[in-house]
């Protein structure tokens, strides 16, 4: 007889770190670091692995591969379109090319080349999109890619993987090198908690349950998964037991695990740092509509662009942190019980109000320091005034 699984609490078989919620001890690394480390490992495992960079070698961490295997590193300059097509050509000759750039440019700029030369030809090219999501921060909307999951997911033959932390990013990179076929890997710029361990299971295409719960399920992809776990703890204290699923592979989606969760808990919340339209939220709704229609709340970017700001404030202001997730779960539960809810999700409206509030505060604080020459009250930071100090 199968062992009965616990109905609530962290899944011990997921082997998450000890002191999961201890902010002082938990390690913080950007997922792009995991990509860099994974590339070196993949390069050691196979001589055919080559890395192509479009002038963003250090920040995508392709540099670590370049240092180890310079003869297998290819610099293209700012040429994202040929980045994809040249990689396809190299793949035709038996190479396993990883193309490294920011998600805004690859797949943002070279979508057609990816569609034609990588996906349609089914060449063994791996696309690494770094600096995805709004947590890129001060660079602003141009560099905050939020549409990548949607535009990659829709292409036949393409896999889409969104690792939740640096360690999983490393595992995903190594696994992608071993698996033949076009694959998109999504990475973030900012450091985020490393909450999985070497023992945490990872297999492309298989969802992992990180926390058991019977009332509602949060399906998340990417570093925000950690926020989902925090939210689940907070909900648990209120008597709501939340199942948390790591859906690192957005395509092919683990429909079986998703449908099982939907049937067991009766309500789903999706969570991602990307457009919910066409993103993980879209993928989950498509699958559930076909196999197990239950109320779904989609937490993510709500049909708008990002903007400049500190990453933590942006995540907070866009409603992607634990408090918003808790609110969204509340709404999902109401809908599950058949209660009436407002037309516009409260958590979306609340986040917008909060964002305005944050903006007002930040700008006011900055303006206080306006020097006299710009019409402010602060003494000018001229050479003279500096000398006085």
């Amino acid at each position, binding site marked *: 007889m199968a062992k009965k699984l616990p109905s609530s609490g962290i899944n011990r078989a997921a082997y998450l770190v000890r002191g999961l919620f201890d902010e002082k001890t938990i390690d913080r690394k950007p997922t792009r670091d995991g990509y860099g480390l994974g590339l070196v490992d993949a390069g050691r495992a196979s001589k055919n692995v080559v890395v192509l960079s479009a002038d963003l070698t250090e920040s995508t961490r392709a540099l670590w591969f370049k240092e180890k295997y310079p003869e297998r590193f290819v610099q293209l300059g700012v040429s994202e379109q040929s980045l994809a*097509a040249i990689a396809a*050509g190299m793949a*035709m*000759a038996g190479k396993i090319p990883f193309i490294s750039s920011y998600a805004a440019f690859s797949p943002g700029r070279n979508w057609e080349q990816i569609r034609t030369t990588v996906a349609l030809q089914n060449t063994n090219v791996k696309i690494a999109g770094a600096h995805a999501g709004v947590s890129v921060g001060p660079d602003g909307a141009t560099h905050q890619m939020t549409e990548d999951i949607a535009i990659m997911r829709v292409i036949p033959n393409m896999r889409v993987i969104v690792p939740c932390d640096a360690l999983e990013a490393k595992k995903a990179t190594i696994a992608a090198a071993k698996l033949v076929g076009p694959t998109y890997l999504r990475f973030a710029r900012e450091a985020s908690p490393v909450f999985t361990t070497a023992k945490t299971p990872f297999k492309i295409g298989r969802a992992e349950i990180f926390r058991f719960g019977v009332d509602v399920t949060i399906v998340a992809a990417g570093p925000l998964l950690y926020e989902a776990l925090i939210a689940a703890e907070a909900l648990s204290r209120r008597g709501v037991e939340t199942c948390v699923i790591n859906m690192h592979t957005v395509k092919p989606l683990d429909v079986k695990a998703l449908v099982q969760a939907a049937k067991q808990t009766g309500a789903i919340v999706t969570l991602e740092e990307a457009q919910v339209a066409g993103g993980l939220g879209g993928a989950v709704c498509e699958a559930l509509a076909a196999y197990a229609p239950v109320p779904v709340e989609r937490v993510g970017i709500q049909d708008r662009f990002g903007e400049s700001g500190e990453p933590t404030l942006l995540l907070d202001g866009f409603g992607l942190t634990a408090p918003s997730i808790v609110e969204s779960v509340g709404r999902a539960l109401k809908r599950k019980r058949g209660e009436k809810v407002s037309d516009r999700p409260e958590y979306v409206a609340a986040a917008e109000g909060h964002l305005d509030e944050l903006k007002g505060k930040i700008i006011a604080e900055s303006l206080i320091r306006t020097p006299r020459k710009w019409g402010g009250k602060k003494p000018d930071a001229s050479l003279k005034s500096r000398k006085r100090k």
Partner: protein
Amino acid sequence: MPNLTLGPTVRKNLHLHEKKLKSLEERAFAIREDIIDMLVEAGSGHSAGPLGMADIFTALYFHVMVHDPKRPEWADRDRFILSNGHICPVQYATLASAGYFPKRELMTLRKLGSQLQGHPERGRLPGVENTAGPLGDGSSQAVGLAYAALMDRRPWRVYCVMSDGELECGITWEAMLFAGRNRLYNCTFIIDRNNIQIDGNTEEIMPLEPLAAKFESFNLNVIRCAGNSINDFISAVERAHGMSEKPSVIIADTIPGYGVDFMEYDFRWHGIPPKPGEESMRAIESIRTLGGRIQSEHE
């Protein structure tokens, strides 16, 4: 950067005998007839480009390239990348003529269930190396292949046929920067310089000249030849093979629609097939009589 110490190897003597030249020319005209028949049967497709390129395709597949129609996946074959996929009728007809697949399949062009897609697809048809249609992507794939060949010290070469219109794509010049920077001497680009594109003549739509100077400034070895002279094209390839420091680009001045008098030089024949019946008959007749320049012996 790939190791250039390997250097090029002479794999095939391209010296052209009078008799061989004649047989190549005859084959090119036979391929032109096949193209007309395919297009008429398909009811759609491009006419001018394929007819204009029949000589170059014949020269490549029957004289220049090291390949084996019986082993399309042979690892050391020369790679042929077609960038302007819309001229695929000439590629299909040439591949069939070379024995990659039975000629009767030419009747299925552009039809449901055919190996001969409206634009060629990798993996669908023996001998087709790459998927092409969206213009500009071929040159990048060619340089990727050439780079990988040098990395692995393989002797095979890459030939990439491109149109002149697609030189308007930005990605083309990304590829040229890369080819020049990495001195990919094993890569030869062949430009179908027929001066037409869908909307009109290239120099009216978006002027490309001085074209040779553009490629030279990207560190390419530029060779200009008459694209409808098999002899001249093959000597251009010999010159490309003679350059061991740079990738070469052969700007082949071709006549669009060559061989069918009423199509020649006319951009309106870029994207349409001849009509069945009298029009196609006139086209075939024109091919058989070199546009009325010689008296027909076949009638």
